[in-house]
């Protein structure tokens, strides 16, 4: 049997629960998201913002449509793209904060409408850590946040990707927000 050769194959495998498929797809997605982000930003004035949904969907089109395979696991793919997106941002944030390391980490106010540009890296890293803690006790809640926030997925897409009802996604999202806020404010 040959190794799966396209994201579609990998996703088919993923459905059957093969963990290593995930490990193979993520680097692809990661690169793709970076490349797309880079292109989109290069095409606009600096200061333009990116659309999360557009990013993830373009990655999907690029990686999946190229293989001309029939696409059935779209939401599953999008969920993975959300994970890749999270990694892209976390890596960037780490790079930005690299030289501030060693000192006391600043506490960022997260409950405001805007986060100052120079505070974004630290804010994101704090969120990332809080999500990691959440994932230890309530993995599905963390996944819902990942899909909705990092991937820009709709509630329906999240529900399909995680194999739960839309109502469950809504409840999980509400609970996750509460728990994350508590974690970040404590």
């Amino acid at each position: 049997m040959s190794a799966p050769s396209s994201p579609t194959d990998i996703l088919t495998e993923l459905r059957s629960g093969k963990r290593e498929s995930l490990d193979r797809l993520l680097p692809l997605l990661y690169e793709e998201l970076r490349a797309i982000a880079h292109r989109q930003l290069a095409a606009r004035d600096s200061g333009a913002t990116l659309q999360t949904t557009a990013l993830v969907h373009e990655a999907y089109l690029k990686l999946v449509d190229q293989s001309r395979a029939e696409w059935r696991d779209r939401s599953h793919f999008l969920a993975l793209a959300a994970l890749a997106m999270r990694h892209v941002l976390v890596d960037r944030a780490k790079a930005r904060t690299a030289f501030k390391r060693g000192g006391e980490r600043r506490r960022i106010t997260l409950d405001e409408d805007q986060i100052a540009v120079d505070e974004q890296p630290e804010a994101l890293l704090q969120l990332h850590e809080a999500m990691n803690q959440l994932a230890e006790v309530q993995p599905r809640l963390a996944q819902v946040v990942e899909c909705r926030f990092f991937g820009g997925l709709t509630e329906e897409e999240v529900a399909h990707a995680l194999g739960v009802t839309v109502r469950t996604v809504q409840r999980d999202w509400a609970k996750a927000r509460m728990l994350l806020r508590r974690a970040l404010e404590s």
Partner: protein
Amino acid sequence: MALTPNDWHELEPLIDRVLDTPHERRAEILAQLAGGDPSRRAKLERLVAECERDFPLLDRPVTERFGALMHGSPSRMRIPEVLADRYRIVRELGRGGMAVVYLAQDLKHDRDVAVKIVQPELAATLGRVRFLREIAIASKLKHPHIVPLFDSGEVDDWLFYVMPYQEGQSLRERLKREGPLPVADTIGILSDVCDALAHAHQQGIVHRDIKPDNILLAGRHALVTDFGVARALTAASEQDVFTTAGGIVGTAAYMAPEQGLGDGAVDHRADIYALGVTAYEMLTGVRPFVGATPPSQRAEHAEKAALDLTRLRSEVPPALATVVMQCLEARVADRLQSADAILEALGEAQLLTHTRRQRIHAVSRRSAVGATAAILLVAAGITSLVSQSDRAPSPQSASAQSLGIGILPVRAVSPTGDLEWLSTGLENELSKELTGVPGLEVRPTETIAAHLANNWSLDSVAHARNVDYFVRATLSRGERDSIVATLELIEGGLRSVRAGSVNEPPRAENAVPLLGRRVAEHLRPMLGSRVRERQLESGARNALALQRRRRADHHRLMARTHLDKADLTAARYSLDTAHTLLVESQRLDPTWTAPRLARAALSELTALLRLHESRGQDYTRVQAVFDAGIAVLDTVLTQSPNDAVALALRGRLRLQRALHGRPPHIGVEQAISVAEPDLRSAIGLDSTLPGPTADLSQILFQRGNYVEAARYAERAYQLDAYMEGVGGIIGRLATSKFESGEDSQAAFWCAEGRRREPANPAPFACLLEVMAWGSGKASPDSAWLYFREIRNRLPSANEAATAYFSMTVAAVLARARAVEPDSVRAVVRRARDAATGAVSQRDDFLAYEAAVLFRLSDSLQAAALFAQLRQRNPARAQFLAQRRLLRGFVRTDSSA
């Protein structure tokens, strides 16, 4: 209000209920869930409120909230400042996945340079010290076709490296502009890059990211850039960053199939592959595999070969096309094995310009040692070799065929820490034991430990200390408190092979030296086969011939296994295959003696097969097989009369022909003498060869000179550094010691043989014979036990052998006076009847029977049987009478 996990566990289902309830019915459900507990109700109410409150951080997509992070490139303002004291940034030249490149002015040296700054998100995931060290290793490369590294460093968390600024364009740019290149230009670029690679590979440095973007065209020359960068990124990436170096370094379309696996087992041949892809692209304008994504390309390649490029462009010279296609082989071993091999192939096909041909010629005529070293370095897994400049000019460095062995600190794994005390001792002992082994250069633990203490990676230590294999022993407790040493061989610090384990009973005294010796004994054959491999490579000039020769070796070993199991059909197939491969290897490189020596050696196994096939009857065919092998050696020796290995082999074949090419024991003593001159000449030319020494021992034994036979066997045992013939030599030691009357020594070697080859019946036979025909204690229980062990280990029902061992048991019974003489006689009778099928050994069975009867003190009957033997086969009778079997019982002078 704190929320404990217990609270949460209890409250979560309640929160779900409330959330699912429309607002107008909330009060009702809250009252119900709180069960009349006001504080509980307040808590629940508050948590639900928090759930439904906006959380600005999460309520809009990440790209809005963290938009600044998406502007990914390093801030343009900051970099020039960072390097301001050394370099003045002129402008950005470009950016890739790994780095942003700036044109800058080197203020100190007043020259234009290219400053490359590692992408910060990548840099954040790197072990900086390691990255910079690896870059520094690559910066030692000095070659006209390699862009040198001027500088590298770290300022305020920015990682950068500096190269000369090259005017001109990259091969990528030219391909984009022009499409396929003229054949002549392609060959020029290909050979420049090969020169660069050959040089770097000799220094043990693999590029890992050869592609048109990294080949710069300056005037009529091509230069390879970014040497060592990909390797540094890989080496320095921390484990948890799946996203960066480990997975993505190297450009997918040019990556060798083995490179995508990410297990570090990538050597210089990955560069050969990448160069193949590049050459294919130069000639056709397209890459050989066009899958949409890296995994699909790899899968594509695993299943089919690339389309022959002459079908895309017919005017490509066939020889060039062949070279390119050979670089693209999916299997590492099938590829052209070195950059030099590519150059040679191009040279042979007259594709290189005159000047270049001359240069290659000069290279191949370098001093014998230099040339050997060069081929060897390229062929032998580059990652493990140190750069020339690091290598001290010791006499050892001339011996290019030796393996550097690094002894890693021994780890003790035991809950009570009671094995710690063994660790250091074992390290020293192991160094001591392996130091004397030819072909090995041992780097003791203390020379390595310092690097490890500084967190060097093993492959970097391998570079710095010239280590081919690390040995790692881990001590633990086994059954009944025994000490288990689990061994691991780590090639080039990268690829680890479990090398088995050694189990020793607990002993306070001598534990360390004994364990050290055992571990060394265990490792010597493994390391030996690698030394042999290396010797083979160093003599090979044609990669395909080498490959055929290696594959033949594999089939030879298979044949050996099949023969041991008496699976004649499989053995025949393996031998035929091995033979065909060797003939092919010889055809590919007629000047190379290795395939011919191997063919000659194969005749021994073929003869064994013929013996089996004819049930030991068809001596003509057996002789013919040996004669063919001897004839092959004759031709080798005509060309090089002083080839000690060929002489030793011819002596051996002559001896084997004498022993097996005739009915047993008929005229053997005379026939074996024809082997002696070759064996002695071989020893005279190379006194370190264990083979001829062991064979001479056998001749001396056959002549009844047991003391000398034992001496030669002992010498052979000492010489057998890699324990290649150790089973046979130990058997010879045991029997010759026994025949010289040293029974306890004999028993020791029998036991030694059993320890080493637990599945072999011979050592048990040896123990049984010592007890049967010797003068030590006779124990019927042990005898029966050995008998069973032998029978369990014989490949198939072997009547003659079973009968003989029944005789030996009878002798033990007779000696022990444990049973009635008639019972012993009954065992003897049954054995004799069982052996009637073995016509060729009928004479010997007379002697065995006589030997048992003597031990039963039935001298009359015994003497009668012996007289019968003497009448039928006087020479055999004479020979057997000298053996312990009958010695002392019959008079050996002819008047008797």
